[in-house]
């Protein structure tokens, strides 16, 4: 079989379509990963961000052929982890989720940041989330939630 093999949320999958298909569409349409949102389809808004080998990518700008033999994490997989729970609790405590559309991408951006830097400064969080647009919050609640998660979830990252 000539499919494209990769790991998606810890499971091996084999995609039978074209290698040039957009990862965003493949994740949403073939694997039903609906947490991956389409906000612009041109790599600007971050709503479709996923982790590829723990690095944050906008899945609208990735051809599925490029992820062969790599590991993809979406919120469907991430939500089972302790790190997610710490982030979710911190977001909840500050009501950092408004319309919710940017949030799955934002959570994965937070995870990517904390994996690289478990104790970021406020400026580092702002930079780490700067590829993810949120129109609702003004970012304060989200940035503070990530800082709180980093403190309270100490040791998780």
């Amino acid at each position, binding site marked *: 079989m000539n499919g494209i093999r990769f790991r998606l949320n810890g499971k091996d999958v084999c995609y039978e379509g074209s290698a040039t298909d957009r990862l965003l569409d493949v994740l949403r349409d073939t694997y039903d990963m609906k947490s991956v949102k389409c906000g612009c389809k041109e790599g600007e808004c971050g709503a479709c961000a996923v982790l590829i080998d723990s690095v944050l990518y906008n899945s609208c700008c990735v051809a599925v052929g490029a992820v062969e033999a790599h590991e993809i994490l979406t919120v469907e997989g991430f939500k089972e982890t302790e790190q997610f729970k710490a982030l979710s609790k911190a977001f909840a405590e500050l009501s950092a*989720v408004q319309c*919710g*559309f940017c949030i799955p991408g934002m959570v994965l951006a937070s995870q990517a940041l904390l994996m690289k830097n478990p104790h970021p400064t406020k400026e580092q*969080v702002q930079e780490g989330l*700067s590829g993810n647009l949120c129109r609702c919050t003004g*970012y304060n609640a989200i*940035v503070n939630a990530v800082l709180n998660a980093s403190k309270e979830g100490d040791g998780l990252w």
Partner: protein
Amino acid sequence: MKDICKSVVKKDHDPKIKGETRYLVDYNLTDKGERILCGKLLHSPYAKARVLSVTVPDLPEGYFYIDKTDIPGDNNVNIVLDDTPVFCRDTVEYIGEPIAMVAGPDEKEVDRILSEIKVEFEELAPELDIRNGTKNFFEYEFGHGDVEKAFREADKIYEEEYLTGYQDQTYLEPQGMMAEPEENGVMYVHGSLQCAYYVHGAVMRALGVDASKVHIFQDPTGGGFGGKEDFPSIIGCQVAVAAKKANAPVRCVFDRREDLEFTPKRHPSLCRYKVAVKDGRVTGADCEVIFNAGAYSTLSAVVLQRGIIAAIGVYDIENVHVTGKAVKTNTNPCGAYRGFGAPQTFFAMETMMSHIAQDLGEDSIEFKERHFVKQGDTTSTSGRYHFPVPLPRMLAQVDEMADLRRKHKEYMKAQTGRYRRGIGFSAVFHGAGFTGSGERDFIKATAKLRKYKDGTVEVLASNGDIGQGVRTTFPKIVAHELNLPLEKVYYNHPDTARVPDSGPTVASRSLMIVGELLRRAAIKLRTIWRDNEEQEVEEHYKEPDFMIPFYLDRFEGDAYPTYAWAVSAVEVELDTYTGLSKILGAYGSFDVGTPVDYNIVMGQMEGGFLQGLGYASIEKMNYDNKGRIRNNSFTDYLIPTAMDVPNLQVKLYVEEYPDGPYGAKGAGELPLVAPPAAYIEAVEQAMGGSKRHKLSFIPFSAEDVIHELNKEVL
């Protein structure tokens, strides 16, 4: 802080953060398991043209072409006037106007068909300039005192002109609606929307059916900010007509480019102000306000009304004359955006006051402060400020946060070097609820509570949660009055088949007006509560007794029962080499009455503040000489990121409103309104003040800074 202010975990937190919330685009099939057809619009490429003929290629089986001839009812979208068509009439009036829809199972095939449709146009000359609009959709005039006398007796008269640009709401979830034919000829329409009953009225009319044959549901909505007030009615009619023809579910979801280019935005404006000053005090103001409505009138009447009511800002001025016009041009119809006309006029008035103060050699904060309205003063429309006006205390709060007064004086002194600083100040109000007698005569809100046998209580209302948190705050109010744990009270997204019309989700009205109805309903339910029984209570809106009736024909009376207030300061560091203004701090004090949930209200204030800063600085959108919007992607239309305003500080000031739940007033729109003028005053100050560089338009970009600074060299 009252008990009700304490923050709770938002009811929709968990499904949203886990990515489990299903937005419209996330349905693979309908709830009944039916396949959904993809509907896409054929947009006009011309700003004005006669449509001579349309040639549609042979359609494969299961594909449909839908245009005005398929509309069973009336080709008018029910908004304010009857001029916005569902599909274009004999002419197209702006670039992007929907001519037809193609619907079918495969999106790529739909795209192919769309690209092969041949439309023969006779191009006509479009009107693109707000200064020579082809007609005025709406005109208003009002005033008080004798403005001519004020000018005759003035020591000095100031005349200035202000321009503001488009602003796009840029909700992260683009527009989208779906229609599903049900049994017995019922059409079910749902999607990303703010006003379920607006869509209901519109679809009934387009399909030519009575109320029972249509029901509307709000799907979880990824942001609105006004952008999903009227537009879902338009797409809702289009998909309903398509679904009727195809006898199958049809969904139309815009991509980002379509959304930025072809959906409503904030009205660009031109304000001409003439102000009389005598003995250091403003004695008269003549304000001419022109809004670019675009090709159809949509919501422009009400946007313009709110705009001109705010024309003289938060100031007590004896003689006032205001005219407002919403002008037709062959451009994209403008609509609702947080602030609803007021950001434009507040920008004009705040900037005018600053410029006058600088000319008089007075600190503009002190000059504005001397003119603040007080409780009991007359409003621009000869109504009354019935409640305390806390602006002086809010200014003190911002002064403490920002060291405003000291810096404002210091930065006024001549600066040299590459980096120069400025701090600006602005004060505004926002009237909550519909303008004038709208709540009483037009909306007539009804809200219900239904208690089930198991003791749970459901809120029945039509206000949609678009991120602002009504799914949490409504139940919070009800649970509070009934002494129930919050888990026992819930509020689903509204379906018009199940909920009464408590009015649209607009005008910062949901919490203040519908929240109060729910509070009263809960008290009623408490008094008749019987265990193990299903019970229902209902409440209707009643205008507060103290209001001076508003007459639209004379434009006179209380435009709003009460006002929320905002004071903001913005500090910038301007790089005179690159033109970039770094925002060092953005500070706001907001009085929205009692916050029914502290975090939720803070989220509204911070989010709105940032949108206001974007509006003033980087959110530039305009059209070319053919009328085509040039900024239709996030590469060309920039909205603030997490790095743009690193130091945003907000405080709440509470002046309780007796007719709002627990003292709450409207909150959502207020925070956007003040920052633009504060930002511009800050940039202007960094450039040496208005005597050297008089800034009078927004957005004011880095390029504009350089352009302005270059005048010094020439």
